[in-house]
């Protein structure tokens, strides 16, 4: 819900509450006023009758009786005064009953006791209340509509710098380090907001750059001592006076240094992918790319006497960074070859929206869910650094691909789906 909708809605809600309360209150107030008014009118008539009744001649009593609202009866005693509401038939419309207020009182005249009844229809009051409430409602409605329109116009104009800043934030990319441009504003809060966003983005860029710098420097700082160790070890095995046992130990050290270095490089690669440092993208024809890269693996495939087949349903173009595509493919194929059995099979299937690589192999030693975690090894071969599957997953996550692993019927299958 947008900001202006939200304010309009809360505005409407409060207007309804006020209207409802006001309506009820004014209804009762009006009712009370009219009610009192009706009684007062009766009382006024009573006062008039009391004043005039003694002067009236007997023959003229009929005049009183003719009046619809006043009736006079002779009684033997003084009637006690009473005020009551009652329903009487409507003289204009048969069958309909109307509210009447009736004042009954007794008078002692020179001829004796008289009971006077004055009645007054209340329907006029109710109609009046209805009309007044209607006017009240219409005015209120007009006011609400007017305010809503004004609110809409004002918020559109007033909040424009805010929405523009939002838009700028939405299009913000950490890799593209071009400063955000905001529209000029005289509103103090928006000025502060823009200033803070500017400050924040510069801060983010600065941190991002220094992190990038750090990753690269860390690589440099690690690799140089490793290079020194390795070259010295290799220099050492050139000596003529070493025993076989010593040579074996040194070889093991060389292997470990290589392992460490590869580990460092792979972790760096993971960090670089996380930092989104591979933004360059090309539309890659996956089928061609696979056939081309398979040449590098040919010696390994023949070495293990594997049978490999590529099924391409359709030539597809995938937007991907070529280096990451290569890392992805090398890890997938590397796994398919490494965990294969001699004379095994590898099938690469490329469909419109997925890549499926399956290979024959022994049953996995551990829970297949854990395979995606870092430093999880499917088997305990010393060459493996346990980051291959993590790399595959990292790249898939980066591009929003879905990676799945499955083992069934002696077949390991990795499926990568895009779109």
């Amino acid at each position: 819900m947008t900001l202006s909708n939200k304010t309009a809605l809360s505005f409407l809600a409060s207007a309804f509450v006020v209207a409802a309360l006001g309506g009820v209150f004014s209804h009762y107030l009006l009712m009370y006023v009219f009610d009192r008014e009706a009684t007062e009118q009766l009382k006024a008539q009573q006062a008039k009758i009391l004043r005039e009744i003694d002067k009236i001649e007997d023959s003229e009593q009929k005049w009183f009786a003719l009046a619809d609202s006043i009736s006079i009866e002779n009684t033997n005693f003084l009637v006690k005064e009473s005020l009551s509401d009652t329903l009487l038939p409507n003289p204009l419309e048969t069958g309909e009953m109307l509210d009447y207020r009736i004042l009954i009182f007794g008078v002692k005249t020179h001829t004796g006791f008289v009971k006077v009844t004055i009645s007054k229809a209340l329907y006029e009051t109710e109609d009046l209340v209805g009309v007044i409430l209607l006017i009240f409602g219409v005015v209120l409605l007009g006011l609400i509509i007017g305010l809503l329109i004004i609110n809409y116009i004002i918020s559109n104009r007033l909040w424009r710098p805010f929405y523009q800043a939002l838009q700028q934030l939405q299009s913000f990319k950490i890799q593209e380090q071009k400063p955000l441009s905001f529209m000029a504003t005289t509103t103090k809060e928006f000025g502060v907001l823009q200033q803070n966003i500017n400050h924040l983005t510069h801060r983010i860029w600065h941190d991002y750059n220094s992190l990038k710098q750090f990753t690269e420097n860390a690589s440099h700082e690690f690799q140089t001592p490793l290079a020194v160790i390795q070259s010295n070890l290799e220099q050492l095995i050139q000596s003529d006076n070493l025993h076989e046992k010593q040579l074996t130990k040194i070889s093991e050290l060389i292997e470990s240094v290589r392992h460490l270095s590869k580990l460092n490089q792979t972790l760096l690669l993971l960090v670089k992918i996380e930092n989104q440092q591979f933004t360059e993208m090309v539309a890659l024809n996956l089928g061609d790319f696979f056939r081309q890269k398979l040449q590098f693996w040919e010696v390994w495939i023949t070495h293990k006497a594997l049978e490999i087949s590529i099924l391409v349903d359709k030539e597809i173009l995938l937007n991907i960074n070529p280096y990451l595509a290569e890392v992805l493919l090398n890890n997938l194929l590397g796994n398919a070859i490494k965990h294969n059995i001699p004379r095994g099979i590898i099938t690469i299937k490329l469909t419109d929206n997925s890549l499926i690589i399956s290979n024959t192999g022994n049953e996995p030693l551990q829970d297949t869910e854990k395979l995606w975690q870092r430093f999880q090894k499917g088997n305990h071969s010393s060459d493996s650094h346990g980051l291959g599957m993590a790399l595959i997953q990292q790249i898939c996550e980066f591009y929003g691909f879905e990676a799945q692993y499955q083992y069934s019927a002696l077949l390991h299958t990795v499926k990568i789906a895009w779109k």
Partner: protein
Amino acid sequence: MRILIIEDEPELAKSIADYLLGENYLCEFAASFEEAFEKVTTYEYNCILLDLMLPGGDGMKILEELKKQNKQDGVIIISAKNALDDKIKGLHLGADDYLAKPFHLSELAARIYSVIRRRQFANANIIQQNELKIDLLAKTLLIHNTPVLLTKKEFDLLLFFMGNRNRVISKNALAEHLSGDLADMLDNHDFVYAHIKNLKKKLTEAGCDNYLKTVYGTGYKWENE
């Protein structure tokens, strides 16, 4: 052969020089940008090993200067930054090769050997050692003047040994040479062994002396007295 090692880590520079000593290479050192810049612009080298991150400046500038002066020195970049951008930029600026640290000394020696061979076009196409004759252009091997059919990988291995004569090469270095970046993914000792065995067999069958020796527990060595 004059080689300039531009490297700020003295230990590394020294072990590179020690390794190359046997192959009648004359190594010189430069440990800073200024020193390297001066040497490069003043003298000629058959091969320059260039570290990119130097105290005092960026190694790329040296490469640019070489290109500007139209110098013919061979250049191999040895960098700890295994960054793709640097590699592309370096090769674009005229470097012959790019080797990420840490590298195997045997790999470096083989690359230097190859760069120098490529730069000296005269008499560089044929490598001869006793009964062995390798034609680099035609990529053929003659033993006692009879052609021996080698696979691409076997020929590659042979050249690697040529660039590292009389030195022990670790199995790991061979594996990485044979399969590059892919080496760490696979069980490579078995793979190296299979290729060496095939190469050895072909050489012996063609009547070649046994130059290729196994160094137990370590690797292999091509002996050439």
